[in-house]
């Protein structure tokens, strides 16, 4: 146990810092550091905004089509009465058939 703790201590103290983005810390001055920061934010947000925009547009278009065709259904409308004799399919069949 003591040996393991000693090894862990040596490894822990001997390890150097690992940066998530090594490039960002190689900036020579403030302008370059700011450029790294800005472009990181930009490239992170760009795909999220683009894909989010398309998803929003598709959802809005879908609602618009629903409204145009009057196909918006409420849960109450989805409850449909089926006569047991004429019903087909496993769910429509009366129990015991």
């Amino acid at each position, binding site marked *: 146990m003591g040996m393991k703790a000693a090894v862990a201590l040596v490894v822990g103290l001997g390890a150097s810092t690992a940066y998530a983005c090594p490039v960002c810390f190689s900036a020579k001055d403030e302008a*370059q550091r700011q450029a*790294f920061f800005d*472009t990181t934010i930009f*490239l992170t947000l760009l795909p999220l905004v683009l894909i989010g925009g398309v998803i929003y547009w*598709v959802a809005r278009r*879908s609602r618009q089509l629903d409204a145009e065709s009057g196909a918006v259904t409420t849960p109450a409308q*989805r409850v449909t009465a089926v006569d047991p004799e004429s019903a087909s399919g*496993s*769910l429509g069949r009366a*129990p015991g058939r």
Partner: protein
Amino acid sequence: MGGTEPEDGETGERRVEATGKILHLSRKMPAARRRQVAPNSVIGILIFVIAELMFFGGLISAHTIVKSSAIAGWPPPGQPRLPASETLINTAALIISGFVLYYARRRYVQSAALARRPLLIAMLLGAFFVIFQGVEWAALLREGLTLTSSTHGGFFYLIIGLHALHAIAALLVLFWAYTRLLRNDLVLSQLVTVEIFWYFVVGLWPILYWRVYL
């Protein structure tokens, strides 16, 4: 209550027996909801535009980093300055072409024949932009700005050149749409697809102008 309420786990449907009737409580989506929200061509061009925007985003980011790390200033010494004020003219032409194309689609919805003139004007404005860019490039080449003269030149011809290639491709597609319109063979989804491509070219340009020219 006396009624049984068996649950069918596989289909997600549930039936309720009451007063001699079986009630179906369907959790399935109604068939009417399974429809196309947009034509395939529109979805296709949107995916293409998103990919291209990411591509240009990478180029702009690289340009920003290189520009910020230029020790001797930007543009580098001995390299010509980009003609920002002259380029404002073709920037205006390109932006106006976007509005004219929007107007063309509005007219098309009323009558296909009404869209002919605005579509032609949008195309001519786009052609003016491309030709003006070509003239500008010729002048810059004479002044010594080439693809290999500096990182300034390399980025300029890469970013602005790729945008010009997209502008030429979009112009060709606009021309294709125009010829179909003349034959009364253009459908709305085709016009919208072309429109999105052109808006991409138009909308990207002010960002490139701001980052590269200013």
